[in-house]
């Protein structure tokens, strides 16, 4: 079976059909971020406590909420799963006062509601640790981007590196924006997912760029536009297959990976979809524009 055979699509000719929706997503995500005052950070990044409590029957969420709110401020009590039939409740408290007494405080309150519960997990994180992690996340992202930019600039040319990094940033921003639109939290594992999808997106772009470089060396009479189009077509079946198969792994994580990994898998699933088309419709047009500018500027 062959999915694509000797295709000759004019990808660069129809770039706007993909760049426009991309821009729409980008703007929608940024507006959501602006309105909500930045991404919704989990307690990993802002400090606070989360307790995962399982009840013997259906949890009396409203009663738990009133009981806990009477003692602590800013409490949120929600069901731990989207699916019905789960008896788990997540109780989150912002970081205030003494972390050490929080657990005791919460368990006492819960016992006053009902005895039929067990604590599955408890996390309490001081605000300073959260601030540290935010810094580390930024360092890691900036470092990873610079590292890849340098590697590509060395292996290819600067324009290739810049185009790939811009496409990668595009994917990361869209994913963060979509998570904000969906009202999902950015936790430590979501950041790990972001860094992974940055790597994936990079992979996709590099496969296309590698082919462009190879084709440029072999056929020099062709214009860059034609070479890029030809290269994208040649790698098209690999791009679609790989993305499809990686998407399968990410989807199986999303469906079967359990509640703890949910945020991670969601970020990854979004990122793989966005990352696939960005290597074709974002990275390649940037490369073309940059190199053509250089050519008309007479520096080529």
């Amino acid at each position: 079976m062959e999915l694509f055979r000797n295709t000759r699509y004019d990808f660069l000719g129809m770039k706007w059909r993909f760049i426009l929706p991309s821009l729409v997503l980008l703007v929608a995500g940024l507006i959501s971020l602006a309105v909500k005052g930045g991404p919704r950070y989990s307690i990993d990044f802002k400090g606070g406590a989360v307790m995962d409590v399982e009840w013997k029957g259906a949890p009396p969420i409203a009663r738990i909420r009133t009981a806990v709110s009477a003692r602590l401020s800013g409490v949120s009590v929600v069901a731990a799963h989207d699916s019905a039939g789960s008896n788990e409740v997540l109780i989150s408290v912002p970081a205030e006062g003494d972390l050490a007494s929080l657990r005791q405080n919460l368990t006492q309150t819960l016992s006053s509601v009902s005895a039929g519960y067990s604590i599955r997990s408890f996390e309490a994180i001081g605000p300073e640790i959260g601030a540290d992690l935010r810094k580390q996340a930024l360092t890691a992202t900036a470092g990873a981007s610079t590292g890849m930019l340098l590697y590509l600039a060395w292996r290819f040319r600067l324009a290739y590196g810049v185009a790939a990094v811009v496409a990668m940033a595009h994917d990361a921003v869209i994913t963060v924006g979509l998570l904000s639109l969906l009202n999902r939290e950015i936790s430590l594992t979501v950041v790990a997912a972001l860094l992974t999808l940055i790597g994936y997106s990079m992979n996709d772009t590099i496969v296309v760029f590698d082919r462009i470089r190879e084709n440029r060396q072999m056929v020099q009479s062709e214009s860059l536009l034609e070479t890029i189009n030809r290269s994208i077509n040649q790698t098209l079946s690999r791009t679609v297959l790989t993305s499809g198969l990686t998407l399968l792994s990410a989807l199986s994580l999303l469906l079967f990976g359990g509640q703890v990994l949910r945020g991670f898998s969601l970020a990854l699933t979004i990122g793989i979809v966005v990352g696939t088309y960005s290597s074709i419709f974002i990275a390649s047009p940037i490369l073309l524009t940059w190199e053509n500018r250089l050519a008309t500027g007479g520096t080529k």
Partner: protein
Amino acid sequence: MNRPLVRRTLFIVATLLASAAAIVRLPLRLGLDLRGGTSLILRVKTDSVSPLQQREVVEQTRRVLERRMNAYGLAEIPIQPYGSRGNELLVQLPGVNDSSRLRNLLQSRAVLEWYSVAGGPYATRTDAMEQHGGVLPYGSQLFGARPTADGKSEWYLVSGPPVIRGTDLRNARVAPGNTEGPITLFTLSQDAAARFERFTRANIDKLSAIVLDHEILSVPVIEDAIRDSGQIRGARNMQEAEDLALNLRSGALPAAIEVIQERTVEASLGADSIRDGIRAGAAGLAAVVAFMLFYYRAAGANATLALMLNGLLLIAALTCFDAVLTLPGIAGAVLTIGMAVDSNVLIFERIREEIRAGRSPAAALANGFSKAFATLVDTHVTTVVSCAFLFFFGTPAVKGFAATLVIGLVTNLFTSVFVSRVAFDWEFSRRKSPNLNIGLTKHADA
């Protein structure tokens, strides 16, 4: 028979056997998020210490805490330095569900001092100050006793430097005591015993105060000269007395500490995570294998072989490096499936292109592998570069994820390029007129 091919095959089989042996012999260590337990991050309050001394203070604290854990019966719990600030420590306690007692045990400084009492009791601190005209006599201090059940506290004025300190103690243990509650018995070092004897002989029938972490535990009357052993009352219950004895044995902390992060995962949630992770991995793997076999036919079997071997090597490598498998680590392993498939797809699509361009099967195979290899190196290096930056996170969970992914990338390069190629070569060597079934439509198949 093709000599190099046999050598390569033997190499692969040897790797396979070594991996299998490693997996059977060495247990894979699970992280606390999978086996259940508590991890604490402690900060040593070193604000009053010069940056030069900070390291030493933190290291001393670490040792004292380790001694305390050992004394508590939790042997081999390493307490590791954590973070970049240099004053944070990470404690990982497997299988501990209620951490409150341990936390108190770790957090109390256990600075014990024995003073002679110069005045008191006073009802409040202000009361005590007024009695002395607002200025305390030179060298003396005011300490409050523990509040009683009705919330009242007594204050005492104590004089001079303490007669004995926690460091003078040679041993401490608990005795049941009488109706007043359990008592903690202690033995003094020789040097301190002489000092203590002089002090008690000179102060018979006078009050003395035992102060623990700036709070008066008890105010015993000195009844007789005491030489090298004494007792401390004032513990509310047996557990508290035991903890006090334990802390006195292990030594006082050179600085106060506070818990700045706690993560507790119950073992059953960890078991759920393992089950979910295995299910996700199996589902992903099954879907991918089914597709590869359908799309690439016979060649898909080679990819499947490479994929399975990759999984085996990954687990073996994790056990050999003594890595701790965490939940993010499982995610990393599942993602490795995606990466491994990408390499196979890249190579197979390249082979197909070569066949379409009219090359012979042998040439198509050789060209496909060599041309795809350059791309594979680039994609793998960039992913390793981005993973390397994940190590900037001090968090063990993220490090575990990155480590799994990097190991997976390396083993993948071996299986998808080397092992898969050897598998192809075997199929070729067995037929007189080689033919390559890589799922191309009939007329294009070579």
